């Protein structure tokens, strides 16, 4: 057997590059995520007309759009491997952790692309400008890390189930609830112009959520992937 020369970072990068290449050529998740964001925001904008709800509703609306857009695209990340029967070689020839982390990073990249498109649209279509933009971006980025980590591991669980159906929604609701509550809270504070001190408790919660979720995912993935 030749020497093992590729380190862990190299293997994770290999999985990430494969995901990018496949996505670039098929636009499987990208189109779903972008179309969902665009359609939802446009529909909400038209239905609200000139009546703009308060920042509480706007903050919740922003994260609801993000969550469902993520669910529409990222939930398929492992199911498509099973359906195309590519999961077998991946299980045999790739270390499980490299597969998981590579896919989490790819999902995060996709979510960041979505957010880059979604945030200006949110500001323009819903006429809602965050008063503390740095806090808004901090909460958004921490939320996206948690969202990519949790949707990836839930997608892995769903892909191993015989009846997939609405399993993603059922599993993700309790898992993502703390993340959504904290992220909405931070977004609300940023919309009304609050400072970091005002948003510190949800920021701490979000940071802890990200660390716990990604650590747990790495610990559990080998079992889920090979069960």
């Amino acid at each position: 057997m030749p020497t093992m020369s590729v380190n862990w970072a190299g293997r994770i990068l290999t999985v990430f590059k494969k995901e990018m290449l496949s996505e670039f050529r098929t636009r499987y998740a990208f189109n779903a995520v972008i179309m969902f964001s665009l359609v939802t925001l446009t529909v909400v904008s038209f239905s609200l007309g000139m009546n703009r709800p308060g920042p509480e509703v706007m903050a919740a609306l922003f994260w609801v759009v993000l969550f469902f857009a993520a669910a529409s695209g990222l939930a398929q990340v492992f199911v498509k491997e099973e359906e195309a029967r590519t999961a077998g070689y991946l299980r045999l020839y790739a270390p499980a952790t490299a597969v998981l982390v590579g896919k989490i990073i790819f999902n995060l990249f996709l979510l960041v692309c979505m957010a880059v498109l979604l945030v200006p649209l949110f500001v323009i279509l819903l006429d809602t400008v965050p008063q503390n933009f740095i806090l808004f971006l901090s909460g958004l980025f921490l939320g996206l890390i948690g969202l990519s980590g949790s949707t990836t591991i839930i997608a892995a669980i769903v892909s191993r189930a015989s009846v997939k159906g609405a399993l993603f929604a059922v599993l993700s609701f309790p898992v993502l609830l703390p993340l959504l509550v904290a992220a909405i809270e931070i977004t609300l504070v940023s919309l009304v112009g609050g400072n970091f001190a005002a948003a510190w408790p949800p920021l701490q919660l979000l940071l802890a959520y990200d660390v716990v979720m990604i650590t747990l995912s790495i610990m559990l993935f080998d079992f889920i992937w090979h069960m």
Partner: protein
Amino acid sequence: MSISSGRGYISYMYQLEVADLSKSFGPRRIFEKVSFSLNTGQGLAITGPNGSGKSTMIHILTGLGRASSGVVRYTHDSNMLSFEEYRNRMSVVTPYHEFYDAMTALENLDFYTRLAGLEVTGQEMMESLRTFGLGERGRDRVAAYSSGMKQRLKYALALLRRPEILLLDEPTAYLDQSGKKGIFDFLDSVKSRALIIIATNEKEEAGFADHVCQLGG
């Protein structure tokens, strides 16, 4: 103990020990108390009628499938190998493992060899594709491949992985005569330094094995 091969690398003596292996799906028993032992340089043909559990047996031997009872143990110098250790020495060709359609053959080979930590150059990948008659089609997406070409590509990957444990399920499925000849040449070249298990009902394929394990009979 090690065997020097003519291909510029050393292969080691491995042993596969299967003891009292049984598999059931619910109340339906597929096979029961199958036992055999195999060393590097030896081949085993698993034969039996449709539904007798040949593919299931291969799946269990890859380490990805679970037996209902019994033991599968890969050892090297009496030391048991972990899943990580033996899968790095294993190549698997089955009809139910596929490549990425959106990627070219070369991209697929590059992806899997990189993941395995193998140092493989583009020239070696092209050489491997040429060995199995795909030299001109390396830059084509796998989506444009026929079933036979996909089967050849699986062997190109197996060749690059320099297998010491080779698990084959219906090894010449979808292949024409030239494809079959290429596969038989490949099996001839690795036979002395690999442990080979073939699930088949074809006499020509089973001919590469020293032992036969008959299921369902």
